[in-house]
């Protein structure tokens, strides 16, 4: 469904030559698949994610969503097509207008997509809130009156309002408490199962991916250094960078040789 081919992305710098943030990366995401893209800060994973949803132009290669490359389209066509890939941002509060209620934010997404008639919008907002396990009564609240986890659910509901084929999640749980993280991750898996939406999940934390990803791709200094089924990457990494990330993601080193805490031996 999503096909990223040989994509290169450069930033112009005031001094010196251009900085290559993404260097010849190829990656695919199928419908109903959760692909984890992992790497340290500054490895280019977020730049790639932004290119996928059309917030950045890439310099070389193609990014095809159902074989349509956003960067090759005119302005109005691009607006229509970019709905197919929706981004969920790291900062749940920053991605919502603080002055707008939850209902109005989701309602606006519905209005943009023109997917349901105006008269049925309120009903659809209720459905979407229920889909992300929020009580429909939160529709009148502003983002600041919600917790971080609730806010991220609203952001996901808004993304789903335009019926995307692909969700691009850029560190969606990094800003959240661990216990809330787990619930949001479970929600993403559940939505994948129910809606068949593909998901490109960007994170610096391999442990998060262990919970949800079908496949994992590892980026380092702009290049894809390793990719494969999640189980393989997590248990038999071949690239030193993957090993480093695995070590960093290990939270209980003292018990690593033993069955992990919380899992009955």
């Amino acid at each position, binding site marked *: 469904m999503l096909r990223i081919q040989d994509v290169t992305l450069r930033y112009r710098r005031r001094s010196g030559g251009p900085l290559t943030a993404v260097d010849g990366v190829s990656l695919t995401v199928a419908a109903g698949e959760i692909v984890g893209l992992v790497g340290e800060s500054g490895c280019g994973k977020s730049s790639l994610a932004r290119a996928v949803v059309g*917030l950045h132009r890439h310099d070389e290669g193609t990014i095809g969503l159902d074989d349509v490359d956003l960067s090759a389209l005119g302005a109005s066509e691009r607006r229509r097509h970019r709905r197919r890939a929706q981004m969920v941002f790291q900062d749940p509060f920053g991605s919502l207008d603080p002055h707008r209620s939850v209902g109005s934010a989701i309602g606006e997404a519905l209005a943009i997509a023109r997917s349901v008639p105006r008269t049925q919008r309120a009903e659809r907002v209720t459905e979407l809130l229920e889909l992300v396990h929020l009580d429909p009564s939160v529709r009148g609240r502003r983002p600041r009156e919600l917790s971080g986890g609730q806010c991220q659910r609203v952001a996901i509901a808004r993304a789903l309002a335009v019926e995307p084929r692909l969700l691009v999640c850029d560190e969606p749980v990094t800003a959240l408490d661990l216990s809330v993280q787990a619930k949001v991750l479970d929600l993403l898996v559940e939505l994948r199962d129910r809606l068949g939406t593909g998901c490109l999940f960007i994170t610096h934390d391999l442990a998060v991916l262990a919970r949800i990803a079908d496949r994992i791709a590892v980026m380092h200094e702009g290049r894809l250094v390793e990719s494969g089924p999640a189980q393989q990457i997590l248990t038999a990494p071949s690239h030193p960078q993957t090993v480093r990330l695995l070590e960093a993601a290990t939270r209980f080193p003292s018990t*690593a040789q033993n069955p992990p805490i919380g899992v009955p031996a």
Partner: protein
Amino acid sequence: MTGTAPSGAAASGIRLPRALMLALPLVLIAVVGALAPWLAPASPSATDLSASLEGPSTSHWLGTDQLGRDQLSRIVFAARTSLSVAAVVMTLAFVVGVTIGAVGAFAGGIVDRLVTWAVEAALSVPSLLLALAIIGIRGNSVPNLILALTIVAWAPYARIARGAVLGYRRSAASEALVGLGAHPLRVLFGHVIPTASRPALVFASTDVGAVVLATAGLSFLGLGITPPTPEWGQMLVESRPYLATAWWLWLPPGVAITVVALSGNLLSEHLGVAPELRRLRIRRPRPTPSTSPKRGRAQTAAKTGRPVPLWEMRDLRVDFDTPDGPVAAVRGLDYTLDRGEVLAIVGESGSGKTVSCLAPLGLAGDRAAVRGSARLAGTELVGAGEDTLRAVRGAEIAVVFQNPYAALNPLRRVGALVADGLRPPAKGHQARERVVELLRAAGLPHPEDVADRYPHELSGGMRQRVLVAAALAGDPDIVVADEPTTALDATTQAEVIELLRRLQRERGLALVLVSHDLGVVAHLADRVLVMHDGVAVEEIAADQLPNATHPRTRDLLDAVPRLPETRAGTRATTRSTEARC
């Protein structure tokens, strides 16, 4: 909907009356001005030379001027003049300024540079002088007065709008909207213009006073409203020959101008304050040092067998004063900490873990009321004066704050920031040497070089190390690390934890580690205190965590993301392969 009603009403319940009270003089004057033809006892231009310069009386409440015109009527009609001019000028300045500023920021590139240049040019010219020049060239009339005042007044609106829109354009909210496929016009009118208008509206409330003052000033100079139209500044001019003899000529218009200007300023000050601050009313808590023995004390004392622990909390309670009544953040916390010990306090956000550490040091803000007991080597901190607390902070107990991006002053070099905390204080070479030593201890490469850098030149991990160095500068006995790794990425987190562990061992520090992540603290702490809803639900040795029974502790354990079990063995092989190469 129903759920939000109480909080919304409470918030506006605090805000509205206050704002209304401050706006009341302005509103009253505007209403009086609007109703002038009906309210005024006489025509403002009806002269009666037989009754000139009469003092206040029952027929003329504010007396008459040199032409025998009723002063009260003139004041009332002048309100109409002044506020009409102000309304027109401000509407024009607002619309022109916000449009120019928003369009500049929205368009970017050369358009934005032109806008910035124009705004700066307009702001750098003395405004009254510019207005004088415009009226001087174009002649003395009401439209020219409005034109001159608008040209003087638009620039701040443009600058404010531009800043708001630039901030908005960089936000994830605007990107999300673009990502949804919103049409640029929807973005402009639905989001950009409202974003730009909000702060500009707040500014407008200050501007009322300034514009009324400018109108009066220009009229006073004979360049604004011309006689016989009544205007406050104009009235002041006419009263000048009678300053000593007829106070009723100059006092009322002076008072009117002052009231309008002051009311505008107070209102804007009120509206400009961050809503969060306004919602939480600040009230000094009355400290109530606890004297009675509290539950659990005897038991713990018997268990530890030490008479005076380094750090001892007994029935610590922290309440926050909010408009909806006090909110209990910490509800009776007991624990002790000894030299060289590492205690982890874990819990979800809002469980009171951070507040319980900061409140006894007086760092939880003015609206926190602290009760119970927190003793540092036997000295009671709850209820202690600010001087005592200041002596304790840094030198006895140092705090490493959560966000390394926000906790460092961006305008000062790293070396100076660390040197601030040195105890005993030092200067010059000596300070420099100690700072470099601390930075080296915090594991920063090239500490001499780092000392000369500004925070923005360092990565998140390096900044966190700088914060650790700054915390050590006072040579404290206790370091409280509040979520020291939450803002960092996974590889950096591991390094910072390693650093804290090393320093704690080398220096025999007592370390309090606050975190929501049991995984981070489990192998660093000796003991773990699990907090939920303001109370400690379980205190447990770190190596006993797998056997923890309390449901809240289990929740926190289950939330830790975990790698597959087989990893450990495989990884060991990979590492040994690497080692051989």
